[in-house]
């Protein structure tokens, strides 16, 4: 295995994914910003990665456990969030909204898997967006879901 992250000492990485300039797409970034303000165990590292695309394997390599926080279209009421593992879902590239050179999170994860570099444990926190129009602000309904989401992530990492 080629170690792309030779300096990594912590064991659990929390990645905030999304574009904060596109309304609720920035919820993953906002959530991990709020998490970073909490008292966290020393083995936790937090990164705001935005839209990593094909660079995702370089972020994931070398970690035993990774938590990804992102806006996810699940067909739920906006503001609903879910915790799930990759085994539970199919990730589908959105047909109309593609990111840099068509490498979205699903493609980045598929590439990581093909390279056999997936961490042992991956947990998703997906939040249903209300609005993905250009803008810095989260919608009220998504913002109000953040406290319970952050409590759940904190419970999760303190159990480890």
């Amino acid at each position, binding site marked *: 295995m*080629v170690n*792309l992250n030779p300096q990594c000492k912590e064991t659990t990485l929390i990645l905030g*994914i*999304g*574009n904060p*300039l*596109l309304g609720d*797409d920035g919820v993953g970034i906002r959530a991990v910003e709020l998490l970073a303000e909490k008292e966290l165990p020393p083995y936790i590292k937090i990164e705001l990665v*935005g*839209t990593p*695309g*094909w*660079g995702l*394997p*370089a972020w994931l390599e070398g970690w035993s456990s990774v938590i990804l926080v*992102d*806006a*996810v*279209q*699940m067909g739920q009421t906006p503001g609903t969030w879910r915790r799930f593992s990759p*085994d*539970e*879902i*199919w*990730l*589908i*590239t*959105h047909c109309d*909204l*593609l*990111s*840099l*050179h*068509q*490498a*979205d*999170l*699903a*493609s980045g994860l*598929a*590439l990581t898997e*093909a*390279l056999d570099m997936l961490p042992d444990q991956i947990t998703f926190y*997906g939040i249903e*967006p209300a609005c*993905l129009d250009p803008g810095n602000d989260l919608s009220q309904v998504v913002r109000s879901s953040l406290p319970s989401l952050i409590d759940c992530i904190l419970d999760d990492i303190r159990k480890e």
Partner: protein
Amino acid sequence: MSERIEVHHVTRVEGHGNIVVEISDGQLKECRFDVIETPRFFEAMLRGRPYQEASHITSRICGICATGHATTSLRATEKALGVELSDQTKLLRKLTFHGEMLDSHVLHTYMLVAPDFLGVGSVIPLATTHREVVLRALRMKKLAGDICATVTGRHTHPIAMTVGGFTYFPKVSDLKALRQRLVAGRADVKATVELFASLPWPKFERDTEYISLSKPDEYAFIDGEILSSDGDRLPIEDYQKVTNEYLVEHSSAKFTRHNRKSYMVGALARFNNNFEQLHPSAKEAAQALNIKPKVTNPFLNTAAQVVEIVHCVEDAINIIDQLLERGISTEKPAPVNLTNSNGVGACEVPRGILFHHYWIGEDGNLSGANCIIPTNQNIANLEEDMRALVPQILDKSVEEIRLSLEMLVRAYDPCISCSVHVLKIEDRA
């Protein structure tokens, strides 16, 4: 007998473009590259904003060329406000510019182009069939991103670059660590040249006008004059005499033309116009790749990018050596002179020459802006290439023609837009 080839949303390019080709009784009837992105109104967004915000706003035009847009924006503002940059600022900007050039070229050559030649549909199966190739690309991308992060505070959308200089300075130890990684990275660069030298580039020649920046003393990426391979040399303030933008019905992007019906910008134009100023190792790479100016095969734009990968790694090492020798000074940004004025910035971003032109009032707010990106300038030339290529490959199957046209589009590395990434999921149950 007639065939209509339509490729909607060409893959492995940035943004949305459609290829439309119609062949009837062995004759090419129609040949277009439709750009179907909606306009993004960045120029309108800039109006009324303070000059200090312009580079941060326009950086968001692209998540790949963020440093390129920010640097071009800063140069436009600095020209308007009469700002003279220190040598250290110029060196740091060049260093981070190389980081972005490397990142973008590695993305294009390895992730977007190589799968066509290695017999797979995308980089994901490539990770299984050629694992070492993909790992090498990821290592190089990470190093490139770390150059940008070291100099400007983060990988994409630089935060430390400001009008007149920098708000943050890399530590000597960070620069030494980067240098060490760049030197070690020469092995990956060598393997990159070997890989791309072994690829069977499609055979196709069409001479066109090649336009790039040019400088007397270095391979131009930031500032300089506009140079045409047809012989003209113009100050960047005269960019509109080169771009001559016009509208066509089938594209939401403006087209451009200069001496001929179309011109080409990008790595191949730079290679053709400024070959002599490449680093000696980059010239050796060109020899290994069997290219020398003037190259008129647009598919070899990718090979020219490989040459620039070598140049940028070597020049980045040189720049770090200069910075280490000088020592890093925590200098204040150079002062501005606020008057009613305008300025043009021009840089060679990964996909070619980029212009930003700003009008700034005495209050320091922008009253107008004009941004002309490389992909716009290339589309007319891409269509001319398609028109010349199709009649040469009419004997091939529709699938082969389709693939050739897609590969041609990808060779230009078009960056049609930047958009959102959104996941949709379905329960497996």
